[in-house]
């Protein structure tokens, strides 16, 4: 019989006490409160490690690189104890026939029980041969591997939305996973790449609670993508006070003023960067002085320069529906932001006048 996650921990000499502590920490880091800890413990005590087949299409491997940066839990512990990473061409020992045989084996042995994690996307032009694996188009491998999966995780903006290779004019017709796979739960975890602990957080949530996390309209887990960068930005106070960096390395930049005028896309970007930060909480783009480029948003490559203000966002023409919707939402939000900024500036001018008047 396949052993459970708890068995694995116990065999590693981890005490019951440390195990429960781990569960309560997990509960807290997922924002679930301490009441969820016993449920996590129960789930982990009774479940075998879930096989994960991690596929790579057109991509740059930044998602894998991000995944191995996870600080809590450590990637080592995820791979050795929490799931069974049976296929991942970036890390696996085997290659060629020995590697491909694993997919067949897992499909048979764990039918309906395994998770497919997809990094990158399939190109559809040229009969799919812009991404060839085992002599065949990646799209075939993707469809076959997903056929018996329990759920699919679309890692990063490539799998979720298309990302850089799908930027105009998308010469290979790179296509997000949810547009070619149907009939399975698909969780989009966008970002270029997503934050490491968001990735391990999504996986451990699914393994722990044995369900797909609550998703928004775009298929993103609400727990990590429910709020905009701008909503939780530590420089928000400067935005509200009308204090902006006006040029690179100016006085405002050195004082950590708002980067809105430098093109920051924080106001239109849903992600956890401003709360969770990156690489063990060390920093995140705005803290390090560059505006958010909006890398977790659909079609972020085609919304004008990274240095255009969000009000300058161009309307979309005759693009696909997703682009249209995304563009419209961005434009509306952009307009709202402009109004927001105007109100802020007005308030500031008023208080200035009042001060002068006194």
């Amino acid at each position: 019989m396949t052993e459970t996650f708890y068995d694995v921990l116990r065999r590693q000499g981890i005490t019951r006490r440390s195990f429960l502590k781990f569960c309560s920490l997990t509960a807290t880091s997922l924002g679930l409160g301490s009441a969820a800890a016993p449920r996590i413990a129960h789930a982990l005590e009774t479940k075998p490690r879930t096989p994960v087949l991690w596929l790579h299409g057109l991509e740059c491997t930044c998602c894998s690189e991000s995944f191995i940066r996870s600080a809590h839990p450590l990637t080592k512990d995820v791979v050795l104890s929490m799931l069974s990473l049976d296929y991942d061409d970036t890390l696996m020992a085997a290659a060629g026939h020995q590697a491909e045989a694993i997919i067949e084996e897992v499909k048979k042995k764990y039918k309906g029980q395994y998770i497919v994690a997809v990094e990158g996307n399939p190109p559809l032009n040229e009969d799919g041969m812009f991404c060839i694996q085992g002599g065949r188009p990646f799209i075939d491998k993707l469809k076959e591997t997903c056929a018996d999966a329990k759920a699919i995780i679309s890692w990063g903006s490539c799998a979720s939305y298309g990302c850089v290779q799908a930027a105009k004019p998308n010469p290979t017709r790179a296509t997000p996973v949810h547009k070619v796979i149907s009939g399975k739960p698909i969780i989009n975890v966008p970002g270029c790449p997503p934050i490491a602990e968001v990735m391990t957080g999504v996986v451990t949530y699914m393994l722990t609670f044995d369900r797909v996390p609550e998703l928004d309209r775009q298929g993103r887990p609400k727990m990590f993508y429910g709020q905009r960068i701008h909503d939780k930005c530590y420089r928000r106070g400067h935005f509200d006070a009308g204090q902006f960096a006006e040029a690179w390395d100016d006085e405002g930049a050195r004082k950590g003023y708002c980067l809105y005028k430098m093109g920051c896309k924080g106001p239109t970007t849903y992600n956890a960067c401003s709360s969770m930060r990156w690489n063990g909480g060390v920093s995140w783009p705005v803290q390090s002085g560059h505006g958010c480029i909006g890398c977790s948003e659909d079609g972020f490559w085609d919304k004008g320069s990274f240095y255009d203000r969000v009000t300058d966002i161009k309307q979309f023409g005759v693009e696909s529906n997703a682009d249209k919707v995304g563009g419209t939402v961005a434009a509306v939000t952009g307009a709202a932001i402009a109004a927001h900024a105007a109100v802020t500036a007005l308030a500031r001018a008023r208080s200035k006048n009042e001060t002068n008047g006194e």
Partner: protein
Amino acid sequence: MSAYETQGFKLDNSGKRVVVDPVCRIEGHLRVEVNLDENNVIQNAVSTGTMWRGLEVILKGRDPRDAWAFTERICGVCTGTHALTSVRAVEDALNIQIPENAHLIRNIMQLNLYVHDHLVHFYHLHALDWVDVVSALKADPKKTSELAQSISSWPLSSPGYFRDIQNRLKKFVESGQLGPFMNGYWGSPAYKLPPEANLMAVTHYLEALDFQKEIVKVHTIFGGKNPHPNWLVGGVPCAINLEGTGAVGAVNMERLNLVKHVIDQAAEFVEKVYLPDLLAIASFYKGWGYGGGLSSQAMLSYGDIPDKANDYSAGNLLLPRGAIINGKLDEIHPVDLKDPEQIQEFVTHSWYKYPDESKGLHPFDGITEPNFVLGKNTRGSKTRIEAFDEGGKYSWLKAPRWRGHAMEVGCLPRMVMAYLQPQRYPMIKDTIDRALKQLDLPLTALFSTLGRTAARGIETLYCARLQQDMFGRLMANLKAGDLNTANIEKWEPSTWPKEARGVGFTEAPRGALGHWIKIKDSKIDNYQCVVPTTWNGSPRDPKGQIGAFEASLLGTPLAKADEPLEILRTLHSFDPCLACSTHVMSPDGQEMTSVKVR
């Protein structure tokens, strides 16, 4: 083709054909086919880049100041190096000078990438070619401890420490769920390490996995995140504020302390774990001298890490620039990326179309029009290929050549060219000499799979130390009162000439990387990248000359014909990156042609 000779190699594709696809533990998608003789010795090798993303056409018409972000997404493993190459290309085109602090911070970030990338490559992408995980279960932890303590003062080396790891591994293997170690080549006679060395290496595989995430924090501080930190044309985006109001929101003393802490830790890990492991493992594989390929005859490096700011001439580079051809180590040729006669790309055997495919094109005039046609002897169908025909087109990689020569790029060329100039690179020469002495090997032993792997380790130590030096220089410059991080004189496109063109180069961890940009009316008119794995993994050219991957596999015997362990070992020694190497396309190259099996 049945048999022919090129570059001193004999190729013969008459024997049994073995296909390895996918080649795992690399970035991107690569396929290799080899022909074996009756003794399982490789007589022909065919390397195929199996993906194409089309980034160059996507860049056309965009703002040149945005190009770093697009090109950075060419590769998330060597993250940042394309971005740096891109901002250098734009700055070259627009004649922008960057401030001293930006220069030093960029150098620190690039060196930081080297240390991280090489370490992850050695332990997580390459080690399993030399290290038998299952054999580690048979090791005596006490003897493992003795071995570890005999080669390094690294403190995590007690018998109990190794026993704990071994127990964890044992139970993992016994669970029957082998995860990434499933279907590995465990027990193959090609593995030579004793169980104790295997246990030490597997332990450090896990330790390095924990540690690598610390190294990149330097990118996070200066660039906001890793992978894919942020960059800026004209400098770096992070402002410095040491003591004024708001310093807490900029690069301040606490941030600098964190950078120092991380780079010191990284240097210690490289010195006390990576290099001792490398030499220990190498000592058991001394007899396996295969995989040299082109390295003893043709090597190329663009050089990197400028010493003084804004000077990209060969004499100012702390990683050497030059070309060696015809095996003449006493002559290092100058390299000019703008000279149309030097770097040219050919497509005779690549899935692209040129008006005249007998000629190569310089990247400034590059065309990338996809043309997926298969040679007449291809086995299988368009979407179910059993074996490619190397007589026809067979790769998404172009074939770059330097003055007509196929070249190897990467750490080995860099380290050899540094070794040959000891007055300029004394530390590198010294480290190589010590390693060779310890292993009792001649200099020519470097021209091998193992030599490539060793060169990477030696370079890592050099870069880890250089990173510490650069940090010292940054602090000295800040002490002198200079806080500038960006030059914004030419930030606004209205200050640019109507037309401009420039070249940016770096040495990516995997080798020579160049970006060629043409700017017209403030927009990108043409953008071409020639990247390391395009050089190393290139298909054949009109003369039938083979690239570095193909050359390196010839003559290698396989312990078992159906287990590609030796093939993986040699390919991994190059650290292939296929997302980088698969070329991009020209502005007018949007027409997609259908495949014809002729």
